[in-house]
């Protein structure tokens, strides 16, 4: 289970962040509260992704070839999710 968690962790964080943004935009439609809430949500997601990145980078140095492969995949997943999370938050943060 730990292997899957690390492998898919980045993408799960991206999904959770997206759904949270959709949630606040729907619960507080047309208000600035939604825009303000996006910032802490994004910071939490970024922090989680940096944590996952560090874990996966450590795994990339494993002596086992499959662990290294999964570590690389997890790192790529977390990195692309980091970009996606920031990209996702821009519409709210830029206002």
């Amino acid at each position, binding site marked *: 289970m730990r292997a899957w968690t690390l492998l898919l962790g980045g993408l799960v964080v991206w999904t959770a962040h*997206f759904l949270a943004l959709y949630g606040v935009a729907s619960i507080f*439609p047309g208000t600035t509260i939604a825009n303000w809430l996006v910032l802490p949500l994004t910071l939490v997601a970024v922090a989680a992704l940096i944590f996952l990145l560090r874990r996966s980078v450590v795994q990339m140095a494993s002596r086992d070839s499959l662990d290294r*492969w999964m570590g690389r995949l997890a790192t790529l997943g977390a990195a692309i999710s980091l970009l996606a999370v920031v990209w996702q938050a821009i519409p709210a943060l830029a206002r």
Partner: protein
Amino acid sequence: MKSETGFDPALFDRFPTKEERPPGEIEELERVWRAPRGWGLLTAVNNNYIGTFYVGAAFMFFVLAGFLALVMRVQLALPLQGVLPQETYNQFFTMHGTLMMFLFAVPMMEALGVLLLPQMLAARDLPFPRLSAYAFWAYFIGGTCFFMSLFFGLAPDGGWFMYPPLTSTTYSPGINADFWLLGIGFIEISAIAGAIEILVGVLKTRAPGMTLARMPIFAWAMLVFAAMILIAFPAVILATLLLELERALNWPFFDATRGGDPMLWQHLFWFFGHPEVYIIFLPAAGLVSMMVSALSRVTLVGYQLVVLALLATGFISFGVWAHHMFTTGMPTLSISFFSAASMAVSVPAGIQVFSWIATLAAGKPRHNTPTLFLVGGIVTFVIGGLTGVMVAMVPFDWQVHDTHFIVAHLHYVLIGGSVFPVFAGLYYWTPMMSRRPLSERLGKWVFWLMFAGMQITFLPMHLTGFMGMPRRVYTYLPGMGLEPTNMISTVGALTFGVGVALFIYDLARNFRFAVEGTAGNVYGGGTLEWLPNGLYAARSIPVVRSREPLWDDPNLGDDVEQGRYFLPGTPTGQRETIITSPIRAEPQYLQIMPGPSVWPLLGALFTAGFFLLLTIQAYTPAVISGILAIPSIMRWLWETDRPVAKQEVDVGGGIRLKTYATGPSTHGWWAMIMLLIVAFMVFLMLVFGFLFVFGVHPEYWIDFNASGPALPIAAVYTAGGALVLLGRHLLQREGSTLWSPTTQVLLGCLALAGAWILDFALWQDAGIDPEASAQGALIMAFLSLEGFLVGVAVLMGAYLALRTSRNMIERPRSVTFDVTMLFLVYTAAQGAASTLLTRLFPGGL
């Protein structure tokens, strides 16, 4: 090397074995795996047969849907044509979209999965062959009856997305819409059955040594595809059920005048509908990645990035559903998020496209039919992808929404991203199951006709859309400048049709189904499906040491054929395959597999009968059919979960595996967990609907003062779940009697039924009226959903009792007991959660 299960990977070095195999082993394998003949073929469950039936049926629906498209194009060739009356045109475009999406695209991918995956993974078959058979027959019977509705003027006519209020009884009073709602709901159940089969198959039946890093890319694609089905399809199943309940019982989920909201339908539908596009695209992308490598005679460039792209698409695709709703007046900020996600999803698609181009550039692609279809598909898909980024921009989408521009865009994506890859695949893999390959000469004609037809049809259609022609109108006035592009599109469509007709001719001329003596590896693929095969798949199951084992070990085919790897015979004398661990594919145990049976066919027939008879309001026959489906399915299951006399057997190389296992690492447990994920998603979507409707129309909600019994009812549900867990605990104790564990389960069922009856009765006392408001309707929907689960739980309890009475429950652990326990505990948890939610929100909080 590390181990995942305690298995010593050094044992793989024993293979290929050196000693001669005993005589008669192959004959025994052939006897065990022999398929029925004649009419008995209807009872076949081997993936070779079911997979071929499945591909054939999906292709048949493609041809039928394509024919409808041609008639529509003839109608639109000139203004004010009279080929199709308005009402029939509505039925045609609805059936065209529905058939293509629900009866061709998704089933074709599942079909290819059933056909190719066991061979690609070197498994004897997928883990639940009877489930595959059930899924196929349910789909085929349901789909055929659904299509036949067209001949009686009863075909649905509300578009493939069936938006209410157009599809409410006010505007669609006949049973046409019901055909769609019940038919599609049913067919999606079949798709979910197939997805569970594929998911467990990829994770648990791979050849030893085939780690995640060595998995064929098609298996990765099918893994993501099947997982997406489990998450996405419950939304459409729930949506169709709610709309059918609204139509049949006047429960106003989508009626804004009674606190419902038609936007709820759009959210539920598109939560399914957009991932559906990727559900169709990803397996096709997997096919392309496999073929582009084999046909270029070089390994896939960026394998790991392609895996990442598949996974990322799977996740991001669930964040784009509302881009179909940009014009509905959603909050601007929400729209911005969906717009950003819609642009982001093009990144993983781009990664795959660049990988394919790089692979083609790095290798030496040959000029043959599958390569032509691959290149044509990539070009077409890229054009569709670019217009997709255009419509992800909200202001642009507002301009072209519901015009022919969108029709052009979606056809570029779906034909380029799915149809052309499937045709490439049909040419590439036909030699695996036919005595002769398809004709290269005819194939090139087929490609050029289809490719040219596609571009001639849909490129001008962008202009038709820009000029303002809306979708789903059966004609247009002369003098609006729409004639030239429409005429060109019709000529293109007919050209495409000629290409498909030529393909059918090629099939009729050259396709000769065979399991042995096939044309073989014509295109020089490097993956395991090209090993010498019989009905038992490969003679022995190889140890996989690379991604293209046939390229890296030229002797592999011979060694496999000589039985020098795993499972060279049938040590238990029954159908069997090796179950391996999900990450490192280490052998865990031997799965005994069921053989041919008429019961999956009968189960599918009666289940389909239930839904279809319900549609035409033949209630008594529908109930009889539904009742007959239950013993049919139970009878099919009755023959499973039967341990064999030998508890451990030698599976080759002196390695011994157990012949019976249950618990969290086994395939049965995994399948049940996946089924429960589906149930949970249905529940989650209903919770979303509940909160959504409250958020939109809180003024319609009244306080029923119903929070008092919430905790007691939840406690009874919890007690039911606890009793079931106690039963499992007793089963593991040697001192317990034959009946004591099952008795706990039956008491648990009683508690679940009691809790549900109490909940229902107290809501009745509180004066709830599901026809009066969406609030009442949603509460009744929660009760109905839970009631259904409790009903199934009671049936499972009865089945367990029946097996106990025949002393057919293994001790200390039993698969039947475990899966029953999982289902019942979930039912208890969902019952408690839905009681607390409906009784405490919003008044009790």
